């Protein structure tokens, strides 16, 4: 038995034909057919900060890469640059929260979850402080390899009591979650989408509004129920359009709040004899899939159940479209997997 989940690739290569650029930190997702919105997080935070003096912002050398620079530019005296020091970032945010402020602390998801976990656990969550940890590069959204691929951030934080976990799908989710995170009087871990962010949900359901703690049916369908979170709701909706051409009717239940989980809506949707697929931009271990499975089994609801998510591996570096295809979270791969299970 070997522990290696990633093959070493030391053999010499030839230069390939065509360009396959590694998707860097600032890569926007492949989101064809959608309008985009610039910096929805930073702009939503500014709108709220104008009315709420308690809001302050902190970053660990990644304000520009989390759209917090928009806030820093508008409110320079309410922004604290902590340098490349994520433990200091979290502890300082805790101290500000002790003094009555509502700190938004931003970094990349890998650093918040891996590097600073003890600080999030002990200085923030154990004390029940309203620190809002908002992190870019969730799941597989960078081609830089495991150092920047937060494939297990939700698994790490799901074990932490009292913290709310949000995985937004699009610009509407990102913008509308900001005031709800402030209204939630406790710690939050939110995944961020930054830069030019696609507007997905309102294209499919014009009256869609983000509600913290609520899963919402974006699309109805009688053959398959996909319960999805984050960008995988976009993938599910796109794949559902493709599958509709083959006569396969796919419902999509968008579940952006992973903790606390909206078990009522999930159970109401899953108990209708449809194939139940959970799709997440995260390892299949410890994320939404296992949370939904536990919910269903505990309630005695046992549909045919499948997971779409990242494998239990350290992932490869490369171009994001290639990687999404390789690991089963591209539009095409999602459609093919669902088809294969029917």
């Amino acid at each position, binding site marked *: 038995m070997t522990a290696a989940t990633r093959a070493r690739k030391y053999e010499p290569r030839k230069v390939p034909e065509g360009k396959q650029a590694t998707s860097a930190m600032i890569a926007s997702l492949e989101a064809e057919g959608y309008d985009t919105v610039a910096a929805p997080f930073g702009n939503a935070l500014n709108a709220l900060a104008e009315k709420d003096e308690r809001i302050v912002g902190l970053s660990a050398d990644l304000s520009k890469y989390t759209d917090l620079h928009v806030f820093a530019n508008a409110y320079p005296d309410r922004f604290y640059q902590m340098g490349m020091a994520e433990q200091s970032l979290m502890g*300082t945010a805790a101290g500000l929260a*002790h003094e009555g402020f509502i*700190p938004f602390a931003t970094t990349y998801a890998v650093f918040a979850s891996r590097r600073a976990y003890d600080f999030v656990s002990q200085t923030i969550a154990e004390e029940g402080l309203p620190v809002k940890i908002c992190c870019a590069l969730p799941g597989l959204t960078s081609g830089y390899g495991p150092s920047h691929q937060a494939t297990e951030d939700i698994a790490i934080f799901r074990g932490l009591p009292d913290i709310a976990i949000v995985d937004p799908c699009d610009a509407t989710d990102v913008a509308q979650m900001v005031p709800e995170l402030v209204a939630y009087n406790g710690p939050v871990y939110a995944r961020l989408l930054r830069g030019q962010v696609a507007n997905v949900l309102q294209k499919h359901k014009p009256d869609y509004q983000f509600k913290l703690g609520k899963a919402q049916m974006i699309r109805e369908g009688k053959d398959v129920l996909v319960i999805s979170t984050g960008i995988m709701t976009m993938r599910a909706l796109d794949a559902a359009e493709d599958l509709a051409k083959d006569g396969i009717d796919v419902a999509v239940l968008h579940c952006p709040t992973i903790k606390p989980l909206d078990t009522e809506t999930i159970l109401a949707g899953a108990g209708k004899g449809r194939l139940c697929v959970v799709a997440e931009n995260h390892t299949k271990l410890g994320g939404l899939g296992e949370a939904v499975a536990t919910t269903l089994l505990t309630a005695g609801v046992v549909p045919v159940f499948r997971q779409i998510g990242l494998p239990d591996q350290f992932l490869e570096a490369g171009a994001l479209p290639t990687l999404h295809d390789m690991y089963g979270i591209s539009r095409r791969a999602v459609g093919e997997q669902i088809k294969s299970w029917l």
Partner: protein
Amino acid sequence: MEASIERRSNVSLARRAWNIRRKAIQMGEVQGQGYVGQALGVADVLAVSFFHAVEYRAEDPEWEGRDRYQLSIGHYAIAFYAALMEAGILPEEELGTYGMDDSRMPMSGMASYTPGMEMSGGSLGLGLSVAVGRALGLKRKDSPAFVFNLMSDGELGEGSTWEAAMAAAHHKLGNLICIVDFNNQQADGASTGMCSSEPIDAKFEAFGWFTQRIDGNDIDTLVAAFDAAREHEGARPRVIICDTKMCKGVPFLEEREITHFVRVEPDEWQKALAVLDEETPE
């Protein structure tokens, strides 16, 4: 700022320290264990803190104008509870509940259990960064209050302490006073013998802190150091490195092979009290 009632009393700081030592030993006897060696060593620091340096209101531990006094090193809770009782923040009648089920005084310090406990420490190296956040918050509120962070020399081994030390200097936190209890003792032995943080004063100075290194078991020296830390005019964070002696005040424990978790036999708690009682300060 209004001083607390206790601080106006005529009880000497030496007597306060003696009282804190006595209470810590009494709590140790309740559980038959505890970080008594550290408590005896840091008692003078706590006496000068609570009865000379720190602003608080015993009847209102969450008074907005108070100085925030954080116990980063949750292991020292037994010493801190003794100080809180001496200060009138915790009632002495609860001394016998130390470490018991449903007590307000768990063996490691946690904010949600105990009035006057500003943070949950224990996972070492957390306190200084939380203190940085509090100091920034107080400045935002234009509060004249100080943040005190009591930590141990062992916590200097945590990288997070130095992240926070950099941040405090960068953000010019003149309202932050860090106290390092340097008893040269960690879980596996002498802290200077395993991965030494010396020269610790030079390190803090290099990080931009107003630095003092003193005998942490000398009351007059402590008073002068706390005064200097408060009164220093530079916009710099302040550190008082206190060299202290484990088990200070109980010679038969001082002479024991010093360990992180000093072993005290069941019959020795009363002996320790008797030793203290032989030299009760005025």
